[in-house]
């Protein structure tokens, strides 16, 4: 009976693991195969890897898309880290009744569905397109700004700040540091783990964001990676080997970030809900 139960559990988990991993394996195998082989469900590695990569880099604008995505993701992440940690720190360390009320109002914005504000945002950026084209429709700034400040990350930093020893703030003040100085000189270096976790989540969100860039970016040379893949995926005569190569290249950065910083990621996710 005990053995039967154990066999059942291992079979169940192995199946779940297989289902979870299979699309990845297929993706990795497919970048080495010809388009025909991919459609025929070939599960063995082929010898077409170099050709696929060559076709990808020669016929698809993957380099500009990668560059755009990287610029957007890095700037968004840096802005998010700075603004959200300042706010999370302010709400927790300089706590006051008024600020608690403001904080709770900000949290409500987490319930706002993006689809509900997408049209007004589009019109807002449209209205400044003529006077400030660098911030208008089809600009990288327009992609970054609405996504760089979210209540989630403020909440995230505030929750993690609860574990930050308050006497460090006092100590800093005695050492003659200004309030801002305490933040930059003491808080920031102490909270490295929290920053790392927030950076991973923010980078992944931005790198993978689809709907807002789809709405606001119009010229093909501004396209980000998800827009490019979506485009390739819906083409009428798809070269599957090439599309798979693009997907693998697009997934590599987030997969790498995740594996290198796995511990921070899980710790950070939990820190945000432990409360």
């Amino acid at each position, binding site marked *: 009976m005990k053995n039967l139960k154990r066999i059942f559990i291992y079979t169940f988990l192995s199946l779940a693991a297989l289902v979870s991993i299979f699309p990845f394996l297929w993706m990795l195998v497919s970048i080495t195969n010809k388009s025909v082989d991919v459609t*025929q469900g070939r599960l063995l590695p082929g010898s077409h890897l170099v050709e696929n990569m060559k076709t990808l880099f020669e016929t698809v604008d993957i380099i500009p898309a990668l560059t755009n995505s990287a610029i957007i993701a890095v700037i968004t992440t840096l802005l998010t880290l700075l603004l959200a940690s300042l706010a999370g720190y302010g709400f927790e360390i*300089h706590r006051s009744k008024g600020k608690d009320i403001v904080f709770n109002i900000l949290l409500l914005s987490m319930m706002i569905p993006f689809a509900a504000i997408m049209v007004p945002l589009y019109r807002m950026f449209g209205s400044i397109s003529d006077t400030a084209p660098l911030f208008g429709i089809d600009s990288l700034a327009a992609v970054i700004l609405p996504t760089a400040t979210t209540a989630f990350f403020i909440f995230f930093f505030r929750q993690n700040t609860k574990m930050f020893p308050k006497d460090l703030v006092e100590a800093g003040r005695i050492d003659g540091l200004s309030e801002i100085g305490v933040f930059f000189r003491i808080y920031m270096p102490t909270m490295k783990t929290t920053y790392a976790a927030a950076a991973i989540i923010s980078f992944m969100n931005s790198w993978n964001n689809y709907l807002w860039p789809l709405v606001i970016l119009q010229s093909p040379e501004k396209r980000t990676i998800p827009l490019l893949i979506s485009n390739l995926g819906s083409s009428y005569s798809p070269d599957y080997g090439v599309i798979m190569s693009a997907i693998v290249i697009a997934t590599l950065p987030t997969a790498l970030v995740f594996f290198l910083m796995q511990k921070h990621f899980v710790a950070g996710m939990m820190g945000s809900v432990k409360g």
Partner: protein
Amino acid sequence: MNQPSSEKSKLDLPVSLRYKETKREKTGVFFKKKVGWLFVIVSVIAITIFNFYPMVQAFLLSFQSGMGGNLEYTGLDNWQRLFSDPTFIAALTNTSIYLLIQVPLMIVLALIFSVLLNDPKLKFRGFFRIAIFLPCVTSLVAYSVIFKYLFGVDGIINQFLLNFGFISETINFLADPFWAKVVIILAITWRWTGYNMIFYLAALQNVDKSIYEAAKIDGANAFQQFFQITIPMLKPIILFTSITSTIGTLQIFDEIVNITNGGPGNSTISISQYIYNLSFEYTPDFGYASTVSYVIVILVVILSILQFRVAGEKK
């Protein structure tokens, strides 16, 4: 998470110095209150501009109608149009189906995985954990495209089912209204189950082991332990994950667009996709699109309150 303690010792100051500080602190109270606002002000302004202000704008837009920029107030016309708009009704029905089937399915699966993987005697725990979490590193667009190919007419799933004799001829999954919905539900579940599992696993580590031992002595079997200890202990985190999953699934867009593009017909279209189509695919009707978008807002609010209520009552 405990890194601050190491820094602490460096900055620990003699008590005599601390005494001075309390004196100075009193005179600086007013200034300190003000300086606190400096830390939060940029975020408060940004969230107001990029979240709250557009919400108000969308509300006003929902009472306006017209093509592109030529909008005028038409009262409740848009809201009445909702009830007789077959595409909207299809979008609402589909989104509800995704929500009602996918969220419970995923949460139950994630709970089962987390309980099984929490057993310290289990072998290959680390491997199973990483394998099940792995789908979370993919972008929504990328995995959607992969699922589209996996479930294609000549895709691997069809070949597998054929070869093992489960079916006698290929199923055109994505061209069939029923199967297309199934594929979308499977896809979302594949992507997000591991994500939710991590939350439960971490919460389980905080559950006192002695409770389970006491239950075992009292003769409770595995199922009783699961329903009477694990579920109640994890209630807050289950509530948290069901609310975030509900909000997420209500807004589903990337998967629909990239797996089925709403088809066949409108049999998989979601509310978010319909809003996008109304604004940017068809002749733009920003007013009506905003009305449809407020339906999601209303649903998010109602469902969140409902889930809080349900979780509260069980106490």
